[in-house]
């Protein structure tokens, strides 16, 4: 059954990549890449159970943290064009 779940997650990641390449605006691409990162967390967790080494869940947890920070960083870069701005008041 882990193989079936892994196949479903891989198909989802492939479709998310297609949507990221095809998306007309940058926000569609960020949405698809955010979904791709969430599915990567699930893929690492399921593959850890598939190979009998659930210790990979630590990697999945770290990847979830990095994915969230990465999404916020890309959004801030798109919004302000600069990662060093501190608040919205000084931007634009």
């Amino acid at each position: 059954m882990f193989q079936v779940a892994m196949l479903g997650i891989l198909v989802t990641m492939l479709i998310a990549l297609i949507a990221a390449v095809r998306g007309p605006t940058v926000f569609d691409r960020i949405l698809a890449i955010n979904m791709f990162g969430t599915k990567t967390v699930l893929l690492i967790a399921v593959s850890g159970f598939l190979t009998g080494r659930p210790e990979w869940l630590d990697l999945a947890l770290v990847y979830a943290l990095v994915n969230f920070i990465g999404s916020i960083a890309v959004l801030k870069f798109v919004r302000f064009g600069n990662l060093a701005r501190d608040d919205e008041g000084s931007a634009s």
Partner: protein
Amino acid sequence: MISILDIVSWVSLIAGSIFCIIGATGLLRMPDFWTRTHAAGVTDTMGAGLILVGLMFQAGLSLVAVKLVMILVFLYIAGPTAGHALYRAAHGYGVPMGESTVGIRSPEGGDDDSH
């Protein structure tokens, strides 16, 4: 020889995979950005939740289940937060609505909140 926990775990895993594929299909086929966000939300909540719950049934009461609960709680907090930041940025940028979405609202007239 197949226990109830295994059956529940397999049903959860397969249902989660189906929700993931449904959400990804919606991401491809929905007409504009604002409807695509609904499809992405399905995979973040039902897909990830059901797959992680299915893995929890496999893990039993152990440290692995605690790690799975931590991943699930973090995904449920971080996913909507990143999504809200994304939608707010897109709303401020002025991403247009699709023709079909606007066409449904237009006969009502007046109440147009698509700034």
